[in-house]
């Protein structure tokens, strides 16, 4: 567990400013979906796991009693705390924490959120077990993350491509495996939604400033190996000159703690 935690910290400690300014993380359908699923009433104690620079926590704060926002990376939380002060958000507090070992008393929260992060987690069943522990009876867990298609071949392909680009990527499960793990952890799934992130330029996404040309080429070759049907149906690949645009499939779940 320690090694991937260090890889994640190393990856994200360099990118707090990038995430703070990233419209892909600040806005978009995935935040809307998680807000709609949660239906906050104003009285909730909320935990936002792997908050990054705090976008999900800040979106919930005006609609709930309190938000505690955690992340594995200090630089992210320092930036989040700065943004919270700038925006004068009074009911959000921060703690460094690993998703698999949460530093909270059992049955402390009414709602736990987690957005665009579990594919970086070392141990998703341990994370889900901890979410179950810190939620009160009938509490809600609302998450959204990038997922793989329901195909062994594409699960392997997508995780290989993601790991080549970013070694803090651990694993993107398909929706069916998420459902099985969430149910096994003691939740009842009440709603789910399939979504996608906004289309991204490959030449931007592949981070040519960080990844050497050989790696960029390997990832580009991997995309070229997809059949045209797979590329279009699963990843919305659309050529634009020397570049191409694509998106990842996303899966959102609303689950109630039994």
């Amino acid at each position: 567990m320690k090694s991937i935690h260090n890889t994640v910290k190393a990856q994200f400690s360099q990118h707090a400013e990038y995430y703070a300014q990233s419209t892909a993380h600040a806005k978009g359908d995935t935040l809307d979906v998680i807000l709609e699923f949660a239906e906050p009433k104003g009285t909730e104690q909320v935990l936002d796991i792997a908050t990054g620079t705090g976008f999900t926590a800040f979106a919930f704060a005006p609609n709930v009693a309190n938000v505690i926002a955690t992340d594995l990376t200090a630089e992210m939380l320092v930036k989040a705390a700065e943004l919270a002060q700038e925006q004068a958000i009074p009911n959000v507090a921060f703690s460094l924490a690993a998703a698999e070992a949460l530093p909270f008393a059992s049955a402390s929260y009414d709602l736990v959120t987690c957005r665009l992060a579990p594919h970086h987690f070392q141990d998703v069943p341990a994370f889900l077990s901890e979410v179950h522990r810190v939620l009160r009876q009938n509490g809600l867990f609302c998450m959204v993350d990038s997922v793989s298609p329901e195909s062994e071949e594409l699960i392997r392909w997508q995780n290989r491509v993601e790991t080549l680009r970013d070694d803090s990527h651990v694993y993107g499960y398909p929706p069916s495996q998420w459902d099985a793990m969430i149910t096994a952890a003691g939740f009842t799934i009440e709603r789910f939604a399939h979504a996608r992130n906004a289309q991204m330029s490959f030449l931007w996404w592949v981070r040519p400033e960080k990844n050497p040309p050989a790696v960029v080429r390997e990832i580009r070759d991997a995309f070229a190996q997809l059949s045209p049907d797979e590329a279009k149906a699963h990843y919305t690949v659309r050529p634009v000159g020397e570049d191409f645009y694509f998106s990842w499939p996303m899966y959102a779940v609303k689950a109630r703690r039994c």
Partner: protein
Amino acid sequence: MNSEKSYGLSETLLEILACPACKGEIAHDEAEEKLVCQGECQRRYPIRDGIPVMLIDEAELQS
């Protein structure tokens, strides 16, 4: 929210913090600026930039 230092240490947070290792209760040692497990393991967690560092591998173990 009187200062940046106290920002992360809201009363709400302190009330529900627990040791991530043994899940024991946490006490705030204000003199040492540490969060101390009152349970079995008695780990001591640092506070940096006003934010609790509740990571098992960054805690001090009682000698």
